[in-house]
């Protein structure tokens, strides 16, 4: 299968008054057509900046993509003139954002906001766009969609707004849908509904998905492959099953340890990753996880380890990866 997306050495920084924020530090990964890739990591690990960089939606200033290539269908998005980039946004790559409450324009109707993309990319006239919008809203599970086209975002609940965002994202049949923590702001039952919805739509429409979350539990049922990010680096990458069965990076092990498990049995304690997330301003040399790591060694504070293949499709960036061989996350 060919690669739909190939990210090579992507590096994005924010030039703020307090110094340079190294949000994404030269990460590389790929995505096959129709594949679902999960990106996990705690708050501030650079997940959003990563995907916003793909879309070239980083606010500039203060942000800047300082290096790297993003090959989408073989074409480097970073080199495209802006008007061609706009032809990709919304049409080829669509995005759903973290905050459903604020991601829709409060003064424009739901219908208008979905129609807008259809008119722009599909050249539909108002009538056709409106009909298609009603179909899309029905598809994402909004009851009485036709009657709700002229409603405004404030008349929708958070979960409904996120469905509208999904409808908007799907409207032009994108090859890639990026969902940036689409369920974090929603309550648990709605979360499950949205996850199921995307799963079902993927089956129906066959698009590739990048699903960002800091909840490893959500990823398990959805993604085929997972990337674990920390401090703007990819720490580990593996197929979902492999990652759950044989996590190798100490951070991943910690993350999985903080996940409740049904098979852990009575008395098993939940652990969490100790310490604080790193400050991305003045990031020290070496591995950003070193200050919080139980396995920290000599080299860890001096040089960032390379992301090395340790098994089929399983890559880890850790100097001390021998020590974690055969570890079970809940056995700490």
């Amino acid at each position, binding site marked *: 299968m060919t690669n739909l997306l190939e990210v090579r050495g992507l590096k994005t920084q924010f030039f703020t008054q307090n110094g340079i924020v190294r949000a994404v530090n030269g990460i590389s990964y790929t995505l096959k057509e129709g594949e679902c890739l999960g990106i996990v990591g705690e708050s501030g690990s650079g997940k959003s900046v990563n995907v916003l960089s793909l879309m070239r939606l980083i606010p500039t200033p203060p942000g800047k993509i300082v290096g790297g290539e993003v090959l989408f269908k073989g074409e480097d998005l970073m080199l495209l003139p802006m008007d061609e980039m*706009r032809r990709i946004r919304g049409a080829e790559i*669509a995005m759903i*954002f973290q*905050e459903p409450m604020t991601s*829709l324009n409060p003064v424009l109707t739901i219908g208008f906001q979905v129609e*807008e*993309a259809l008119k*722009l990319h599909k050249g539909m006239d108002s009538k056709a766009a409106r009909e298609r919008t009603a179909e899309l809203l029905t598809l994402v599970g909004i009851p009485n969609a036709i009657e709700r086209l002229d409603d*405004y975002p*404030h008349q929708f609940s958070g979960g409904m707004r996120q469905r509208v965002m999904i409808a908007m994202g799907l409207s032009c049949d994108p090859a890639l849908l990026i969902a940036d923590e689409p369920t974090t702001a929603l309550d648990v039952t709605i979360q499950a509904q949205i996850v199921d919805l995307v799963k079902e739509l993927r089956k129906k429409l066959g698009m590739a998905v990048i699903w960002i979350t800091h909840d490893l539990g959500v990823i398990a049922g959805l993604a085929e492959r997972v990337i674990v990010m920390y401090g703007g680096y990819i720490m580990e990458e593996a197929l979902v099953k492999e990652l759950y069965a044989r996590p190798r990076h100490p951070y991943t092990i910690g993350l999985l340890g903080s996940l409740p498990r049904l098979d852990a049995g009575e008395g098993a304690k939940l652990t969490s990753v100790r310490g604080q997330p790193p400050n991305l301003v003045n990031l020290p040399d070496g591995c950003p996880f070193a200050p919080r790591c139980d396995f920290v060694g000599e080299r860890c504070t001096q040089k960032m380890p390379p992301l090395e293949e340790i098994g089929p499709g399983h890559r880890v960036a850790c100097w001390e990866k021998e020590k974690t061989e055969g570890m079970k996350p809940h056995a700490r």
Partner: protein
Amino acid sequence: MGRYIVQRFLWMFIVLFVISMITFAMMHAVPGGPFTQEKALPPEIIANLEKRYHLNEPYWKQYLLYIDNVMVPHISKDAAPEMVDEALVEISLPGGNYLRWINFGPSYSSRSRTVNDIFREQLPVSIQLGVISMVVAITIGLPLGVISALKQNTIWDFLGMSVAIFGVSMPVVAMGPILIWIFGVALKWLPPTGWGAKPPFTLFFIPNTLGSWDFWKHTLMPAFAVGTGYSAIIARLTRASLLQVIHEDYIRTARAKGLSERIVTTRHALRNALIPVVTILGPMFAGVLTGLFVVEQVFGIPGMGKYFITSITNRDYPVIMGAILMYAFFLVISNVFVDITYAWLDPRIRYD
């Protein structure tokens, strides 16, 4: 919406009542009276004058008399009443009767005129100038603010905001004469003083010369002198508001859709950014209207400003009362107008 507007108008009556009471009380609390002059009049004459204008009555009675004259329609027989009884609304009824309503009383200092005369002849001129000044302020201020925001921290932003600061810090007393000197005296493009519209006016304030250059050649300089100062306020607020909106999540959504920057700005950002700008337009219009005195003096415009200022020094009670109530009336009206615009801009606001 309709109900809301009706409600607002009912409220307006209450507000105007309260204002009339406060004004009346304050006016009489200030020492001196309309007939106190440097060269004292003989006491008999003062007594006579006071009797004629009911100033010898107790205050509460004077106040009720005033309210009665303004608010209550009166029906009387005679066709040409004495000037003190002149009313703004006069309808002839069958049987030779006349219905008269809204009588703001006489002016004490210019004996040949009534407050209604001032409302008919001077107030419309001030409103014309005020409205056109607001239009100037908006047409200069909005684009300036938008450009400054979109080109934040570039030479355009710097230039725009310099113009804005210049506008705020340039008082009309300075700006007026400079304009007169350049366009009136040196270039001779525009007449230095005067006004191009005379009563009667259509619908109370629309000049019948509205379509002619005669009207506009007198309007441009004073409206510009007043408008630039206010345009600066609008420009700075628009800039700040747009800069804030441009960082909102829904703007990112609009960009993620692939929309061009122009559409993102005009369709998605501007309408949201205008909401706070519209809010200040109501009070601003009131400020423009009540502050026209200076510009009317500089450009020799027969507006209301002079009467309002001199009425206070002259203790010309009916003019003070009338002017303040009229200004308050326009303040309320312009705020209702703002509220309607507000609801139109922001669907989250509904009045029902």
